[in-house]
């Protein structure tokens, strides 16, 4: 490759990379709770999980009718986690209910909290679809710089195995950046592409609709999932949902041998035009869930969405969601995705530090990052990096802490205000800490200490209030480990502060003595 082209590629790779680094880091860190969202939900709502374990679908509907007078309008039931969640749609607003100890459905803080953590990853809690578009554009830009990286590092065989920790720090960071980038390239290409498609889905639908349906977006959607029912408001007797569930299971069993029911969506229960859609996962296929829509009054099948024998384009689309969410192989794939997300975060950090080390001589020294932390905190980018990591951790644990203990307060307006409450908790905890620690380096140890306190308090308080449960041990021990690590970071900060202060005093004394001797 010509030197000018290499130089230009490097220039754009570093420019776009620096502009993206903090956003990518935020996406990687928020991805980790998003990967374990089901487990967090089960941890937040253990009683609900036990209450609803063996209910049939018709029992769900009966229970819903006892406590939710509006349940007939539109609802769906998520069955793909230990705590089934009953979603009620009323006047365009979705509210989640779970069964409590006394058997009635109430809104639960756990659902609102997990949705907040999910939104923090896929739209940065920004309003409307704009947050998703922002994340989609970041995904596109990340895909571009990764492709540029492929052309930049054409000697990949040698670069993928070289790490020189004993040389200068810049060289070591550069080696680390190349090793991480090259080894994890396939995973990162998949994540950024699928993330860009999911983020920009609303805009891509317009392109899709213009290429096949004369720009009619509704027609494009109906071509995939069938027409939405037009409710007549006339009362008719509805068939049993359990019968439909059996029919759905038999239908997929005849074709593929097995299926797992994940979600039931009902529109107009008791209405003559009411329908029920049963979404099922077909084991062995990395595709979106298949779905069958039944007429509630006649019991006939209205629409079947089957991604397995679908055309190339349809399978391409059905492949994207499961590949991005990474729960196709249970805890194995979840763990792999979480580790890869952490390594991608490290890739962003190492890239940014390589770029910074050209501009700040203090970052080029051989001494370790921790021992020269105080010098490095004078660089605003380093402060931004550390405060971002600390602020995301604190915002996440604040939401978890509030969601775990809010049910104890028996808040009367929970139904209406919980989603907004958790959004504000996350946004305030994140923005205040990030801005404070970025503005004043002295605020950083305080934020670390707060993290230590929050991450240790949450599992310990949960053990005291709700008791120790072995099925939640993994999550609680992880929280505890993060708390201990934050505490260790705080301790190291103060330890290096002491050394830094002592060396600064010695230098000042030496300078004073030299000045005095010069005067004498």
């Amino acid at each position, binding site marked *: 490759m010509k030197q000018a082209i290499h130089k230009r590629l490097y220039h754009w790779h570093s420019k776009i990379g620096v502009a993206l680094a903090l956003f990518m880091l935020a996406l990687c860190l928020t991805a980790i709770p998003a990967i374990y969202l089901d487990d967090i939900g089960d941890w937040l709502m253990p009683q609900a999980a036990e209450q609803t374990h063996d209910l049939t679908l018709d029992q769900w509907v009966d229970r819903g009718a006892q406590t939710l007078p509006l349940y007939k309008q539109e609802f769906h039931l998520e069955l793909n986690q230990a705590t089934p969640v009953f979603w009620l749609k009323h006047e365009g607003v979705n509210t989640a209910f779970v069964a409590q100890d006394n058997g009635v459905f109430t809104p639960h803080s756990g659902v609102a909290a997990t949705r907040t953590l999910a939104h923090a990853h896929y739209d940065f809690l920004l309003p409307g679809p704009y947050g998703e578009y922002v994340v989609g554009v970041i995904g596109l830009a990340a895909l571009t710089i990764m*492709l540029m990286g492929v052309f930049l590092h054409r000697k990949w065989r040698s670069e993928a195995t070289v790490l020189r920790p004993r040389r200068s720090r810049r060289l070591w960071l550069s080696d680390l950046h190349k090793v991480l980038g090259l080894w994890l390239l396939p995973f990162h290409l998949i994540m950024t592409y699928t993330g*860009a498609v999911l983020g920009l889905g609303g805009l891509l639908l317009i*392109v899709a*609709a213009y*290429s096949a349906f004369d720009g009619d977006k509704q027609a494009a959607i109906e071509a995939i999932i069938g027409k939405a029912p037009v409710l007549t408001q006339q009362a008719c007797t509805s068939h049993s949902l359990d019968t439909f569930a059996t029919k759905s299971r038999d239908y997929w069993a005849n074709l593929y041998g097995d299926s797992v029911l994940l979600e039931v969506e009902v529109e107009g229960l008791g209405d003559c035009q009411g329908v029920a859609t049963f979404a099922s996962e077909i084991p062995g296929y990395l595709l979106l869930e298949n779905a069958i829509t039944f007429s509630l009054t006649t019991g006939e099948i209205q629409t079947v969405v089957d991604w397995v024998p679908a055309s190339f384009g349809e399978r391409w*689309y059905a492949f994207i969601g499961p590949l991005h969410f990474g729960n196709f192989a249970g805890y194995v794939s979840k763990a792999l995705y979480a580790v890869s997300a952490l390594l991608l975060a490290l890739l962003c950090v190492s890239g940014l530090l390589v770029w910074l080390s050209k501009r700040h001589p203090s970052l080029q020294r051989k001494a370790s990052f921790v021992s020269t932390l105080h010098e490095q905190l004078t660089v605003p980018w380093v402060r931004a990096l550390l405060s971002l990591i600390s602020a995301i951790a604190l915002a996440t644990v604040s939401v978890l802490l509030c969601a775990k203990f809010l049910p104890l307060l028996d808040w009367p307006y929970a139904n209406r205000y919980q989603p907004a409450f958790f959004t504000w908790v996350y946004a305030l905890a994140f923005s205040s800490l990030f801005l404070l620690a970025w503005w004043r380096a002295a605020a950083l140890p305080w934020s670390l200490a707060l993290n230590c306190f929050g991450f240790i308090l949450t599992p310990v308080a949960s053990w005291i209030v709700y008791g120790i449960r072995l099925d939640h041990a993994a999550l609680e021990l992880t929280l505890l480990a993060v708390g201990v690590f934050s505490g260790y970071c705080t301790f190291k900060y103060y330890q290096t502060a002491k050394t830094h202060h002592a060396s600064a005093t010695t230098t000042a004394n030496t300078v004073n003595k030299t000045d005095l001797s010069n005067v004498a």
Partner: protein
Amino acid sequence: MKLIAVVILVVLVSLFASMALAMFLPLGDVNRMFVAGLSVPLLIPVLLVLLALSDRPKWVVAGYSGALPVLAAAVLLRFFAV
């Protein structure tokens, strides 16, 4: 300014190219829709990298001036013909 112009041109070429690709391939409506929508996020980064790899500005200008009108005309003709 130059960067914004480059990004806008690349996005336009990618949109027209993905739509043209989907429209002229022998695909059904649903299949065509997905191919058009899903190829855009692939084409944009690939075109940007190709631009960065090109060291002859004349070729780039010729590429834009050729590809944009041809792809746009192909898409619009097909769109209005249907």
